[in-house]
């Protein structure tokens, strides 16, 4: 039985591998972004959206999502294989990240039948791009403090305020929006509500923000008496905080159910090792520098440990003292590791470490750009400092800070 399945899976893997090999897009004449948060030009966006549609139409996205909504209703393992294949062939990522990984699984878990019929298929095909409206200029990691208001007026809610760090804001058709419907209530969380809000209505204005890299990729979204239909409300008024927390478990990868496909161009420590053979320090490849060698091995050790953790956490007997430690720290570990790998990559380059995106820079300056962009991981979705608090409080049982 096991053997038959293994054989089936192997055949499937071969098929996927062959398809991606034949159909992968040719290298564009511009530097591609590495995550959905870095899509800064129409050229980049169209390229990636076309690619996602092609992958979906080939049947390699949303494979484990229900057939009646546009998925294929297959066991998760098939999607995992397809996703692994996309990663190992280093293919471009699926740009509708928020739809595929956060909004989609949320709608499947908590949405109405109507929501599922309306949204799921177009998330998969990238027909409808989704964005997220959680953070505000005055409420970063402190989501509960959101001030953006939604006031019921007849069959509509009227939205006023602003949201920040809206990736793909100018391309999005929908936003998962956390807004305040009440200022009274037991605490600041009680007045929050959750909307599946249309973006292309009068009064909603996403304005691109220039990032520390000098590029664009995020928006600040302004709401000025924007009217959205009342049936965009998910759950009831006041459910917003709980639904946002469920969304964050999808975002942080603590819960499965995502559509699959890669969301970023993964950076591996092996890429940094490869760079260390080419980058020169004082006339010699960086890999010959004893100090660099030690740092490379240390990061390889951490990186391997990080990978092995999920395998170990699946064994209940080996996760008894703090069973939530591994699942709840995924974002913290991954984003901090990536930031440090990028730092090390820049340090391999001698004086050229001081260059930035340009022809003269090593690999066109992508390492410097990646280092700067890596802060999106250590800041977005709850800063590393907040993540430390969360792990300390919910995993170790320490008192709130």
């Amino acid at each position: 039985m096991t053997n038959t399945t293994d054989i089936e899976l192997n055949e499937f893997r071969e098929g996927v591998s062959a398809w991606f090999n034949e159909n992968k897009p040719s290298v564009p004449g511009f530097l591609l972004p590495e995550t959905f948060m870095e899509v800064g030009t129409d050229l980049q966006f169209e390229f990636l959206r076309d690619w996602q549609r092609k992958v979906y139409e080939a049947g390699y996205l949303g494979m484990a999502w229900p057939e009646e909504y546009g998925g294929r209703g297959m066991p998760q393992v098939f999607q995992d294989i397809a996703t692994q294949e996309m990663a190992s062939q280093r293919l471009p990522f699926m740009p509708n990240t928020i739809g595929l990984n956060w909004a989609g699984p949320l709608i499947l878990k908590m949405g109405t039948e109507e929501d599922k019929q309306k949204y799921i298929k177009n998330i998969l095909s990238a027909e409808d791009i989704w964005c997220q409206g959680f953070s505000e200029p005055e409420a970063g990691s402190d989501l509960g403090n959101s001030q953006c208001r939604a006031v019921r007026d007849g069959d509509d809610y009227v939205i006023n305020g602003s949201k920040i760090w809206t990736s793909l804001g100018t391309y999005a058709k929908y936003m998962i929006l956390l807004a305040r419907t009440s200022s009274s209530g037991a605490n600041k969380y009680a007045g929050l509500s959750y909307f599946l809000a249309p973006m292309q209505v009068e009064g909603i204005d996403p304005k691109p923000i220039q990032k520390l890299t000098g590029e664009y990729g995020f928006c600040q979204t302004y709401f000025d008496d924007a009217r959205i239909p009342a049936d965009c409300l998910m759950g009831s008024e006041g459910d917003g905080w709980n639904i946002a927390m469920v969304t964050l478990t999808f975002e942080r990868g603590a819960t499965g159910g995502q559509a699959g496909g890669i969301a970023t161009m993964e950076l591996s420590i092996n890429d940094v090792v490869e760079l260390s053979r080419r980058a020169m320090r004082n006339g010699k490849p960086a890999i010959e520098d004893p100090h660099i060698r030690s740092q490379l091995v240390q990061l390889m050790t951490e990186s391997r440990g990080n990978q092995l953790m999920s395998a170990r956490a699946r064994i209940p007997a080996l996760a008894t003292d703090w069973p939530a430690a591994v699942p709840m720290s995924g974002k913290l570990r991954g984003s901090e590791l990536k930031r440090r790998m990028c730092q090390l990559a820049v340090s391999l380059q001698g004086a050229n470490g001081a260059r930035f995106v340009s022809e003269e820079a090593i690999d066109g300056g992508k390492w410097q750009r990646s280092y700067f962009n890596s802060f999106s991981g250590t800041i977005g979705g709850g800063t590393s400092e907040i993540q430390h608090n969360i792990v300390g409080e919910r995993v170790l049982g320490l008192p709130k800070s």
Partner: protein
Amino acid sequence: MSDQIAFSEEQAMLLDTATEFCRKHSPIETVRARLGADQIDAATWQEITALGWLGINVAEEFGGLGLGLSCVVPVAESMGRYLMGSPYSGAIIASECLATSGSRTQKEEWLPKIVSGAIGSMALTEPNGSWLLDEIGAQAVERADRLELSGTKCFVTDADTSDFCIVSVNVEAQARLVLVKREQIPAGNLHREVVIDETRRSYQLDLDGITVPLDQLLKGSDFQAIEFASLLLLSAEIAGGLVGSIHTIVEYLNTRKAFDKVIGSYQALKHPTVKILLDLEAMRSHLYHAATRLAEGNTDEAEVALRMAKAHGSAAFAFAGDRAVQFHGGFGFTYDCDAQLYLRRALWCQYQFGDEAYHRHLLEPMLLDQTG
């Protein structure tokens, strides 16, 4: 591709039983009462023997359970968690050494004895503190059908109560292993050492004047097997020690108040504690990955995993012990505070069989210079 980490029912059962056993037999009061003890805890040793734990890694033909070294890991980890002082690890490494380097006759003579409670210990390190196991100053010279030993060994744990020691020596410029029985060591040749981890009963062994029959020279000289077993058991002890130190820190952080707040609410204390937890998660993953590869006989991958486990674990446990003392404030500066027990244990583990810098350096060519 095989699983990155396999964990058998036997391992799960042993982890369960051993955790409970050590919790019961090695509460912190007992650990403290036994600091610097003259004798091993004979009653506990008898129980450990009766449980069959000394035979876990010994082949069935020699009276053991034949489960392999990977099944010893949960036991060593549990002992580490409760800071148990025991000749267990030394005995396991000695039996592993006999199994890999002993002749048929030597195995038949000693392995069944170990399974039924004979204590073995390893005499490898010398006063220069080198971690290179096959670079040896001690000598064994053949004279009149006997081997005459000379030189000095240190960090021989429980040497006074051991039924035998396995000693590394040079024989005609070859690194070899020789078994020395307790009765062949004159009383004056053993000196108790003052070591940082007071749960350890450590001895200096002067080899001058000791002679043994030729047939006590082990047939083989598999130093790699000794190193692997030692790294595995030390890493297991480190993983357990990290668990124990985190519990100790968290308990204090949840009770002690300063400036009207429970100190665990201060991020300056909370965040490093989370770092310790995540270091534990990583090093424990390396540890069980190493055990998995060893059990499969994949020595290349096992070596990488072992050195990663020991490197990551050494640094993490030393950090945990260091922070445990600091976070206890003034109390942490006293002998009465348990934080020092973990710090001392951490430093012992860090400096036995190579610290993090040493293992990283050995990993460099393995990870960075392979071609293709």
